[in-house]
Each structure stands twice: as C-alpha cells, then as structure tokens.
C-alpha cells in the first residue's frame, strides 16, 4: 500500500484515464455478453414446423436407426414437413423423465416395464399393447460378443462359466439391458431341462465370473472394447452396430436365448404427426429399415427377408412368467434372487 495515497490499490490501477478505459471495456463486454446471450436464446431451434413435430423419447441404442427412419419418413406423403425432435438415453431414465414432464409424443423403450411406468402415470393408454404387434416395434436377442476369431471358443452358456473366462454384463439394478442378459442365462438352463434351483445356481456362478458390472449397456461395451473380459452379453442389435462401426468384435448366437421385445407407443397427447410416424415404423417400409439396422422386424413378412441367425431355442419373457413377477422375483434390490446372489458373493469375498 502506498502510504502517500491509501486509495492506490495494490494492482496499480489508478483513477483517471486508464481506469476509465477499463470501466468502459468492462461495460462494453457486459453489454455485448448480454446481447450475445439474447441472440443465442433466440437462435435455439424452436421446433415448430409446417408438418408438425414429433417429440421422440427413446432408449439410447436406436439413435442411428432413427436418423435413417426419420429421413425416410420425411420423404413419404404422411411425413412431409414433419420434424422429429429426439431424445435418447437409458431406457429407465427416459421413462422416468417422461413421467417428470419431458415432452413426449412417441416413446420407444427397451423393455415393457418402462412403458408400464407411463401407463401408471396416465400418459399412455393401457391398450398400448393390444395392436397386431402387441405394442412392439422391434425384436432382438441376447448374444455373446467375443474377440475377433473367438479365441476362447465361447459358443454355449456352459462356456461362460469355464475357468479363466471373464464375463462382462451390466449391473442389473442400473441397466435394463442387463435384465435381459440374466433372464436369458436363467432361461437357457430351464430350456435345457435343468430345474429352477439348478438354473439359480448357474446364475450365481455366472455372476461370479463377472469381471465387471458396468452401470449401463454402453459402458459395458466400452469396458469390453478396452480389453477387459473375454465375452460381453449384449443385445444382438448393439453387437451388430458395433461390428458395422468397425470395432474388433465377433458376434456369437447362443443356442438358447431370450427374445428381446422393444415396446413403442404414442402418448395420450400425441400429435397426428406422431401417430403417422408410428404407423410408418410398423409398416413394411419402416420395418425394412429396422432390419437393415440390425433389429429383427416384428412383421413376419419383412423378417423373412433378412437372414438373422436362428437360435435352437428362443423363449420369451412370458415363458418365464411375465415382467411383473420376474421383476419382483429376480430384480428386487432388497429381496430378489440377483440381490441375494450378489450378497453371498460379497460375503464370500469380504475381507479381500
């Protein structure tokens, strides 16, 4: 501090010309900042188009598929001028978001319980699953994703629990995809004639072989690609997409697996454009695009045109008792089978 002038600040800023200049500069910056902000707010796309808007809320996997679908739909008469405003994310999160107010006209999730959330909240009609495709827009199966050339020769579920094999499957409590994986594992044992108790024992062993349980399906894929594990349990559509992107993976179809059914519906407040888009998704043209993107079409006539691998035994969620009972029996975070398995794993590895 300058004893001669106590008002001289330590940074040598002085009242006078220099200081005034700085004041002007700061005000100019502030004003231009405000102007820029208002410009940017104005520039944010408003989303209103001549043909209508479709607020699409979907799980994360079909994003590339929807780019193609939306573009193709825009070329049709019904879709002329329609803007599709998409939001993608983990299936469960997206469903909860819609309940919390995320604008949605068309919703597409990875498993039916997420749609049920919306029905319960009164956003989707309870007759959503009464159409010809039972409310589903695409199918897929649980596949094994392995290293190129399958060096460890993993072809059956029994191979997954061989010594030295590391499995990657997402954590069932945070990922919907993981539920399909474990249900496929459980169901595969039943399909081979084992008893429920034996199937449960297999599940336990499988979890024991999990070298990682990432929080989401995409995190699981990233973990696998980073070099961890020998086999990843994933949707076939996911795996095919990774392959099409040039990632070093091979896809193996297990002999027994579960049919993954992805639900779709329009909300009660949907625009006519949304209903038209849904009709397109279920039409032969739309289903063909889905097939090209690696999803199994639900329309039998279109499915016949694609050569998707046919597993020996394909079962569905209803074979296992339907989602409601399965969710409680297997996936309840406190009392479910999986929770108990994880706990016993934890107890046995406590202290390590």
């Amino acid at each position, binding site marked *: *501090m300058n004893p001669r002038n*106590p*008002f001289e*600040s*330590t*940074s040598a*800023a002085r009242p006078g010309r220099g200081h005034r200049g700085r004041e002007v500069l700061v005000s100019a910056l502030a004003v231009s*900042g405000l102007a*820029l*902000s208002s410009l*940017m*707010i104005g*520039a*944010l*796309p408003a*989303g209103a188009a001549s043909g209508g808007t479709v*607020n699409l*809320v979907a799980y*994360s996997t079909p*994003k*590339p598929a929807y780019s193609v679908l939306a573009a193709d739909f825009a070329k049709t008469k019904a879709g002329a001028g329609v803007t599709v*405003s*998409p*939001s*993608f*994310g983990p299936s469960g*999160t997206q469903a909860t*978001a819609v*309940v*919390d*107010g*995320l*604008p949605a006209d068309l919703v597409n999730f990875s498993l039916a319980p997420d749609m049920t959330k919306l029905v319960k909240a009164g956003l989707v009609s309870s007759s959503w699953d009464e159409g010809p495709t039972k409310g589903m827009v695409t199918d897929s199966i649980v596949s094994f994703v392995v290293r190129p050339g399958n060096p460890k020769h993993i072809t059956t579920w029994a191979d997954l629990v061989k010594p030295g094999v590391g499995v990657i499957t997402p954590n069932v409590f945070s990922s919907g995809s993981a539920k399909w994986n474990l249900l496929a594992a459980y169901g595969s044992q039943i399909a081979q004639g084992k008893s429920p108790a034996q199937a449960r024992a297999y599940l336990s062993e499988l979890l024991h072989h999990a070298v990682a349980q990432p929080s989401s399906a*995409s995190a699981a*894929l*990233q973990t696998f690609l980073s070099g961890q594990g020998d086999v990843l349990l994933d949707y076939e559509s996911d795996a095919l*997409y*990774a392959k099409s*992107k040039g*990632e070093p993976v091979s896809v193996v179809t297990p002999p027994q697996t579960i049919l993954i059914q992805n639900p779709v519906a329009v909300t009660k407040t949907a625009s006519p454009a949304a209903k038209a888009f849904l009709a397109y998704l279920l039409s032969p043209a739309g289903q063909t695009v889905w097939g090209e993107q690696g999803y199994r079409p639900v329309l039998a006539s279109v499915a016949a045109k694609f050569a998707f691998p046919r597993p020996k035994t394909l079962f569905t969620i209803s074979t296992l008792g339907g989602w409601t009972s399965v969710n409680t029996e297997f996936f309840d975070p406190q009392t479910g089978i999986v929770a108990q398995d994880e706990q016993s794993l934890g107890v046995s590895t406590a202290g390590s």
Partner: protein
Amino acid sequence: MRTRWRLPLRVAVLGYLGLLVVLPVSTVFYRAFEHGLGAAWDALTAPDALDALWLTVLVAVIAVPLNTVFGIGVSLLLARHRFPGAWLLDALVDIPLAVSPVVIGLALILVYGKTGWFGNWLAARGITVIFSLPGIVMASAAVSLPYVVREVLPVLQEIGTEQEQAARTLGAGPLTVFRRITLPNIRRGLAYGVTLTTARVLGEFGAVAMVSGAIAGRTQTLTLFISASIDNLEPQSAYVGAVALCLAALIVLTVLTVTDRSRHSWRRGAIL
C-alpha cells in the same frame, strides 16, 4: 527457491502432474486430432455438435456470473461480519460438493419437476424449469456454487481489513471500498474461483443429464453430446467435443490471469 530443494521438488511435481493429468489430457487431444484436422473440424461443426456448443456457452454465460456475485457476497459476509450461524452458512455453501451431481439433479426434479413441490405452481404460470434452459442453468449453478467462495474467502481472511478500514475512515462509501480496495486484492483468488466455476459448469454431466432430457438440438449440452457420441461409437466427435471444452476452460483461465502476472513468484536469495 534455494537450489537444493528446487530441482527435486520440481521433478517430483512435474512427474506427478505428468502421469496424472498431462498424459490423460494429451491423450484426449491426440485422439481428437488422430484423423487429421479436417475430420476434427467436421465433427465439431456437425449441427448437433454446434447446437450443443452454443447451449453450453449460453449456460456458462448465465451461471458463472450468478455464482461469482453470490460467491463474492457470501465471502464478504463471512469474512467481514460476525453473526450467529456463520459456521453453518460456511458449511451449507459446501453442500453441493458433498452431493453427487446425479443426486443434485434428482433433488432439483423433486422440487421443480412436474410432480415436484413447485410443479403445480410453475405449470399454472406456464414456466418450465426442468427439461429446459432454466433447469440446466440451475443444475450447473448448483454444482459449481462453492468454488468462488472457497477461493475468495481465505484470501479475504488472509489480507485482513486494514486497507478497507483506512479507506472507510477517509470517507469512502462501501461500494468504493469494494471496487478500489477489496476487488483488486482478491483478484487472484477470484480469478481462480471463476476459472474453477467455469470449468466445472462446462464439464458438468451428471446433474444436467438428469434435468435436461437431452433433447438433441434443444437441451443437449456439450457434455451430453459427448456422452451420446461415445454411446454411438463415434469417439471422434466425443474427443473433439472434449477438446473444445478444455480449450474454453483454458481461454477463461488465460483471460482472467494474464492481467495479473505474479509478482512474487521468486526472488534471488529467497529462503525457500
């Protein structure tokens, strides 16, 4: 600094920083430009990427000044006044740090979401907070709340009040005292605080993921765009976006501190 200590310490510090920070950050830069500048530019100027960039900058332009003003205010309050419960305010300011960003997002939805405490009140007035810009700004501001306070408060306490008191005894009003005495003194700490806040707002993911709905082109911030790019196996877009964020943070840091070159960095014959 005395010669004996200087080199080993420098080496140790640079080694730690190298392994922990420099290497990962350089990898990000490398991956972004791996396929050439042209590919990187294409990734950055894709419509979704540009929208995300604009939104992120907009959010920062609003949230950072808000937190700066708040931070200075709280610091002055805590450093220059004694009142009961000061310790509580001090701790409350740190709460956002103690809470995972995902939880902050959740909590904001619990209050401002459609089914939240203020849901009906807001809907009746046609105000959308969650799943639109205000929600994103609030989430970003909430997670970065404490940084300015944490940087400015210790400096205020360190420098004491003599200069300010002197100015006041000579008749300066509170605003003048602030502008001429306090502000220049806290400038360095404030610069760090604002940089930390900006960097945090730019890089925020968890809380924003919860409250934004990630509507492509409308409420998808750059971090959400990056995450989506990774999910869609388009790592180039992801790394380019990350580089953009790092550069933005670097620019802020440079602008804030270049005018305040350290005058005490080292002196010959110093003891330490």
